[in-house]
């Protein structure tokens, strides 16, 4: 056992000295989680106020009801004079989009011929256009209400104006309450922190078992085997190296993103169990792939391929489950998907019992790949 620890200590020193372990296990996942969190979460907060131009060609009472429609929305309305000015300001980016109230709008809402309301947007600013579009839609629906009510009542124009005031004053019949931002479990910061943690742990644990091939290339394996060291100590030392690097990587990432970036990982005990299971699965998978390779270069290439493919299928970069069908099933075969789904259930406030299934699956993957690796590993520890 002592020799195993000595080998682990030697490996860790070696990896710390050339800083590669630090780069892969800590810096890479942290930098990516921060970058993805900053760019993606900023968007969901919806903090931006959109500047929407208003061109009024109607001058009737309908235009004065317009302000009701835009109230409380994410857009700030500004009068822009004529359409040419509005177009050029949208093109230059001064305005996010513009809405043109056509002549005859008031007449249309009082039973006249229907008119068309134009929303001028820049295709490159699709969100701004969408905001203007939704204001215009809600205004159209408001005019629609007035027109149905006045026709049902056979109202004249004076009565229609009274109805319009009633509609404006009435509370909306149906309200859609958006609760997306108040939900921890949908927080992209946490998702990407976890996704990057599990993605890079597959790279971090590679410094363990696969270094047996380095030792062989450098001739140090022969020397280890010549020494009075049982083979299982050499193997144990390598596994311990992977375990130490994997656990450190994920723990540092969980703690840093929790306290520095405000990610919500959920119950610490559950998170710890999931981390241990994920690291064990990662070690077994990489160990198995390593035993299939003949040379150090081959092992490195195959390990990168396997790690990247599993990460992509497992949802480390985008939600694969959305595709459904074969992809969703393939996704279920990756440790990444199980780790992430377990963590999502946990961070949405689930009881500890929610991690039982993902943990067991992760341990199952670890057991199967570990057993296969053990069968084949003899080949690696031969002079």
């Amino acid at each position, binding site marked *: 056992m002592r020799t195993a620890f000595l080998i682990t200590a030697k490996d860790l020193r070696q990896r710390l000295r050339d800083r590669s372990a630090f780069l892969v296990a800590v810096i890479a996942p942290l930098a990516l989680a921060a970058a993805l969190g900053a760019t993606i979460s900023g968007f969901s907060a919806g903090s931006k106020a959109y500047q929407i131009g208003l061109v009024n060609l109607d001058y009737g009472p309908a235009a004065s009801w317009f302000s009701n429609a835009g109230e409380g929305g994410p857009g700030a309305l500004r009068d822009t004079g004529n359409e040419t000015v509005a177009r050029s300001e949208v093109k230059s980016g001064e305005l996010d989009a513009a809405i043109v109230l056509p002549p005859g709008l008031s007449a249309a809402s009082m039973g006249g011929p229907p008119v068309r309301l134009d929303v001028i947007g*820049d295709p490159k600013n699709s969100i701004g256009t969408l905001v203007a579009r939704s204001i215009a839609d809600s205004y159209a629906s408001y005019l629609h*209400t007035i027109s149905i009510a006045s026709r049902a009542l056979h109202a004249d124009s004076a009565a229609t104006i009274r109805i319009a005031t009633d509609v404006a004053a009435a509370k909306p019949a*149906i309200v859609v309450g958006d609760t997306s931002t108040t939900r921890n479990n949908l927080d992209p910061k946490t998702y990407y922190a976890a996704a990057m943690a599990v993605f890079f742990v597959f790279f971090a644990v590679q410094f363990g078992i696969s270094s047996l091939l380095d030792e062989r290339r450098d001739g140090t394996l022969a020397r280890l085997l010549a020494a009075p060291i049982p083979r299982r100590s050499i193997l144990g030392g390598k596994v311990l190296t992977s375990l130490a690097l994997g656990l450190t990587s994920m723990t540092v990432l969980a703690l840093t993103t929790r306290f520095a970036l405000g990610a919500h990982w959920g119950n610490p005990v559950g998170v710890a169990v999931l981390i241990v299971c994920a690291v064990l699965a990662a070690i077994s998978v990489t160990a198995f792939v390593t035993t299939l390779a003949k040379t150090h270069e081959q092992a490195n290439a195959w390990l990168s391929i396997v790690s990247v493919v599993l990460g992509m299928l497992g949802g480390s970069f985008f939600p694969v489950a959305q595709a459904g069908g074969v992809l969703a099933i393939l996704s279920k075969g990756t440790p990444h998907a199980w780790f992430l789904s377990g963590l999502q259930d946990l961070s949405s406030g689930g009881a500890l019992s929610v991690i039982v299934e993902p943990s067991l699956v992760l341990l199952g993957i670890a057991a199967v790949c570990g057993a296969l690796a053990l069968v084949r590993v003899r080949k690696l520890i031969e002079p």
Partner: protein
Amino acid sequence: MKVLAIVRTELTRTFRWRANIFFLLIMPMGLILLLGAAFGNSSARVGILKQENGPLAAQLVKNLGAQPGLDTRSYASEGALEKAVERGDVSGGLVIAPGYDQHLRSGKTANLRYFARPDSAAPQIRVAVESAVSAQGSTLLAARIVRAESGTTLGSALGRVSAVKGASPVDVRLLAAGGGKYPQSRGQFQQSASTQLLLFVFLSALTGSVWLIETRRLGVARRMLSTPSSAREILLGIVLGRWIITLLQSLVIVLFSWLIFSVNWGNPLGTSAVILAFSLVAVGAGVLIGTLFGSEQQAAPTGMIVGLVFAAIGGSMAPLETFPATMRKIAHITPHAWANDAFNHLLVGGGGLSSVWLDVGVLCAYAAVLLTLATWRLRRVLTT
């Protein structure tokens, strides 16, 4: 001639190693296939939990299903719906709570609860849901007004309103600021092909820096220098070789996505200019990293970190237009942001070469600075 020989050596060494074929060609194509399968259909899915059995709730569900670009799926419990949204099975969830019909019939405001994944499709889905809801809302509001004015029951007011319900007096139309009709949304997948191209080209050029270190470790560089060829020829050969590999990769991605998924790559001249300039930037950055580190173990992870972080900040993972304003300014530190802007002009705006001259100019400036630094470092590393 000597330059060409060096270029050929670079290419042979790269493609003889089969894993490189995977990373340079197969993986990007696989990812495009994956993205195509995941986001290929342009309809967004919304999950509905209907806890009310009345006719108004049923009508709302029908309205939602009839919205263009919206597919609905029903769920039996709140837990199942939440899980489906979290995992991305559906992009958003709408809960129609018990008492929905009764609230509406008694003249109160009915609340629908909505939540969505914070992804780039979220605002679009929200607008589609709102539009279906407001269709029902405006009928109900009109009926309430009729009841207040004529003193009948809400039921008969609804009947009267339904009888006159016809075309809306206003039709909303989208126009592009530059003139003409507003282009149809191209779907998430169409948009992602160009951003994925940038991500992969840059990432593989950077991780390719490992190759340069091997060139030095194996003594290939020393042997080239011992032949009667100038350092300039060797530098040119190495840079040119890397550039050709990067361009080859871009070409494969463009052709593959075009043939299989008929992805539109816009004006050929404009797109070629952007790809040529951007891949030169990528090569410059890759060679620079290859000269800054002494071992493959350091260069490979550094290349991966810089490649992925730049892609994330530069709008190759989430679209730039969804960034907060300050973040969008910061994004333009990366060449990705400029290239993404350029693709936006070409693919969304339908512009030609003249619409991207500024972006391509900035990319060329990046390339010039990086290549100057890289060749200066390379000359030092190779000759000392």
